């Protein structure tokens, strides 16, 4: 029952996004532009790019992701859709997990598309063996960002200063996950195996998913 609700919500969000592709286009365009701009700031051909390749990539994902995550609950405000959702028999936890899954899919897709662009622009050497660990890091890191972004999207949806409060609250919260993901990615791209940062990322994901599911009811309904 819970899973069916989750699936319905996620499918609804993904359908509505696929129809208009607003957030998708904006995110992809934004991430490509950021990668381009950073390539002017740092010379991509230098050796030192290895040191912050992971950082660059995840900064791009964090910023592009904000576009996706912001819209998550914001799109429900028109026509009182949010009130309808809250009043419906769908539990807040199912609503949250459904939206988080939809956001995760969109963000993951954006990342998969911008990853080759990144590899191209920055001449990142890569091997087939790195793909598996890379996907793992992408999944764990993106889930961390998504969970926090979706919860705070719900929190700030009715605030009058939503555009200001969402980044202010969300980015500091995301920083531990971002740091872990950045370090892991940099290590991977430099050819090292995955370090213990994975354990931190897993712990972060589990803790914040639990906290978010517990608190989403408080945030939406009270």
């Amino acid at each position, binding site marked *: 029952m819970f899973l069916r609700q989750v699936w319905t919500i996620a499918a609804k969000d993904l359908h509505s996004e696929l129809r208009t592709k607003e957030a998708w286009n904006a995110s992809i365009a934004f991430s490509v532009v950021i990668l381009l701009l950073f390539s002017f700031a740092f010379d991509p051909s230098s050796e030192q790019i290895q040191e912050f390749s992971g950082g660059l990539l995840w900064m791009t994902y964090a910023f592009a992701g904000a576009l996706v995550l912001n819209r998550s609950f914001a799109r429900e405000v028109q026509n009182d859709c949010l009130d309808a959702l809250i009043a419906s028999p769908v539990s807040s936890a199912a609503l949250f997990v459904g939206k988080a899954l939809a956001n995760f899919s969109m963000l993951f897709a954006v990342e998969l598309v911008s990853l080759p662009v990144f590899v191209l622009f920055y001449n990142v050497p890569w091997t087939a063996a790195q793909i598996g660990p890379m996907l793992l890091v992408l999944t764990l890191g993106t889930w961390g960002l998504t969970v926090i972004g979706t919860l705070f999207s719900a929190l700030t949806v009715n605030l009058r200063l939503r555009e200001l409060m969402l980044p202010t*609250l969300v980015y500091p919260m995301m920083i531990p996950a971002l*740091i872990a993901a950045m370090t892991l990615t940099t290590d991977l791209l430099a050819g090292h195996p995955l370090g213990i940062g994975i354990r931190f990322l897993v712990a972060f994901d589990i803790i914040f998913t639990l*906290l978010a599911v517990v608190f989403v009811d408080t945030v939406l309904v009270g």
Partner: protein
Amino acid sequence: MREKIIIGLAVVAAGLLAWNMNTIFTGLPDELNQGAIYRIIYFHVPANILGMLGFGLGMILSIGYLVTKDLRYDALAASVTEVSLVFASIGLATGSIWARIIWGVWWAWDLRLTSWLVCWLIFGGYLMLRRAVDEPIQRARFAAVVSVLGSVNAYISYKSIEWWNTQHPQPVLSIRDGGGMAPGMEAPIYWNLLALACFSVILVMVRMRQESFAREIDTLRRMAHAQ
């Protein structure tokens, strides 16, 4: 009664501080490797301890609000968090100045400093959020959620010097099974902690009364508009 408590605490705090400062400056020698600058520890460590404890206490009070729905818990949580933010700022500033001499840089991106700065940003955001929401019950709810989530970061910061190899020194205080300090150098930290704790209680009490003023203003305003 309240005034007496505040004055009493202020006297205790001032007395302790004065006596402790005397010990620190006249009784203790300069540290072997660091020279005079190490004396910053007597403000840096207590301020950060109070900050972390305060954020943790704020989390407990926030959960108390969510469970009981009593707005006084929320008011207390806000006051404690705000005062803790001030102590965290003191900790960050003193740490930075100390680092300039010892490490040669004003800031380093090691995990203890970064996670503490993140805490500072999160709880700064907590205060901003409180100002952005007008409705008291909604404000209390949102603030409680942010407080609990932010406290996870406070815990990460506390444990960061144990879990990772940081540029920041490993645990030194003997209560944390640390390396310990030269004889006589550790006790003033705790005395200063006590003095600053008294001071923080005063600040929280003052803040709490301001919260109750604000609540009264709210109620009266509503009455006035209803007439």
